[in-house]
């Protein structure tokens, strides 16, 4: 028996946040960040950007029970990225898939350079990213939120890592692709940086870009990161005051 879907509204919620919506090529989607949103976690943050809703929580530094992961001279930072089953149009089966395993790995590597892990030998800092609703760019949203949660947990850091993507859609290099722009686009370049030094802690790319287009996209994404970085700082300030 064939199933036909008429007048689908799938994705209509997302179109409003597309460039159709008059965003400039270098303009971010509307966003907000809040620190300290959960009680049990040592640190936490909530982030919305476009249709994305992301929670991040941090536990640690704490004892590491998995012996074979233990480092004698520093802490291990372990990040788990997970999508809620209801966060996407077609229900996602619970549990890790290959995509979330990869994102967990690169998110750990994106956050690690900023943390003074050497202060906590033999321990672990656990970062959990939960995507509550997904609309393109969840890995960047998750890393950005995780940094705020690390700061909220009082973990000593060199800098607050911030992530943002640029890419190419409809033939143009643009900042912060929405879900529709990503799906119909030609390339996506998610990055994370430490804004003080500009060092790049995450870089991925898929699609098709000339060397020049890639250079433009990288510039755009770095600028996007800098704007978001201010919102991260404001979220921390908002929670702990200014002094």
């Amino acid at each position, binding site marked *: 028996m064939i199933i036909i879907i008429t007048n*689908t509204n799938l994705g209509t919620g997302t179109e409003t946040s597309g460039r159709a919506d008059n965003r400039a090529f270098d303009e971010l989607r509307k966003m907000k960040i809040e620190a300290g949103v959960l009680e049990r976690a040592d640190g936490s943050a909530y982030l919305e950007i476009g249709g994305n809703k992301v929670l991040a929580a941090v536990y640690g530094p704490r004892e590491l029970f998995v012996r074979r992961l233990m480092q004698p001279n520093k802490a291990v930072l372990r990040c788990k990225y997970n999508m809620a*089953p*209801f966060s996407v149009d077609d*229900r996602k089966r619970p549990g890790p898939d290959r995509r979330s395993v990869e994102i967990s790995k690169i998110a750990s590597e994106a956050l690690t350079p900023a943390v003074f892990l050497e202060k906590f030998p033999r321990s672990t800092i656990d970062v959990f990213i939960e995507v509550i609703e997904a609309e393109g760019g969840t890995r960047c949203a998750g890393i950005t939120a995780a940094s705020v949660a690390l700061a909220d947990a009082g973990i000593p850091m060199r800098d607050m890592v911030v992530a943002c993507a640029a890419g190419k859609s409809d033939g143009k290099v643009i900042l912060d692709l929405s879900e529709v722009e990503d799906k119909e686009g030609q390339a996506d370049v998610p990055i994370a940086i430490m804004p003080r030094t500009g060092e790049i802690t995450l870089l991925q790319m898929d699609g098709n870009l000339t060397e020049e287009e890639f250079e433009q996209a990288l510039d755009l994404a770095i600028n996007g990161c800098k704007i978001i970085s201010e919102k991260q700082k404001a979220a921390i300030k908002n929670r702990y005051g200014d002094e």
Partner: protein
Amino acid sequence: MVHIVPEIIKESVTNLVKNGERTDGRAFDEYREISLETGVIEKAEGSARVKIGNTQIIIGAKPQIGSPFGDTPNVGVLMTNTELLPMAAPNFESGPPDENSVELSRVTDRCIREGEVVDLEKLCIVEGEKVWMIFLDLHVVDYDGNLMDAAVLGSVAALMNTKLPEAKIIDDEIVLDYDNLIPLPINDTALMSTFAKIGDELIIDPSLEEEEVMGARLSVGITQDGNICAMQKGGEKTFTQEEILKAVSIAKIKTAELRKLLP
């Protein structure tokens, strides 16, 4: 990981209860502050976020078209799944659902199913072939005790919030009309109240601190008519027959109060 509660905390919580008090000043039959929002996830056909004290669960309902079970060919399917996220508590671990998560899923499911919250027969599209399956996913993000009552309250709210496209049969094909969204058919609003036994006292809506010292736990599901639709005892101690009957009486009153929070 076994979480060991220091003896001194155990004693102080227990002694307070013995004297008719609770650490947060509540009466024995008093819930913590509850907040309940619906429609919090645009991509979910139904959703809710419930907080009881600091306990927080986000619930999404998503429909799929699937096959009915062989022995109920004209009845839709409700699937309840709970994730006790490692984000929610320091001792929750990633991985497949453990026994606590399974119990929470199954008791929630039982209260909703036996309370006949959803009219599952109306979810039949083609008898014996195609029915709506409703996946109810409970994402526990912050754990401060009494997951059961939060899970049922939030789930019922999410189901009440759910809208499905109309499914028509045209020329032997199923046509889903997304211009014509229909609320999920709701029959009842069964809810659950949970009691902890500390010493010889029953207290409603135990906080995490209270759960850690309780001897046993009793959850009672009550329909809007005041009938009992689900019960579950937990914990390593016992209840007397009288305590159980008392809990049922209180649950009737308290679930009626909770019901006013529904949309």
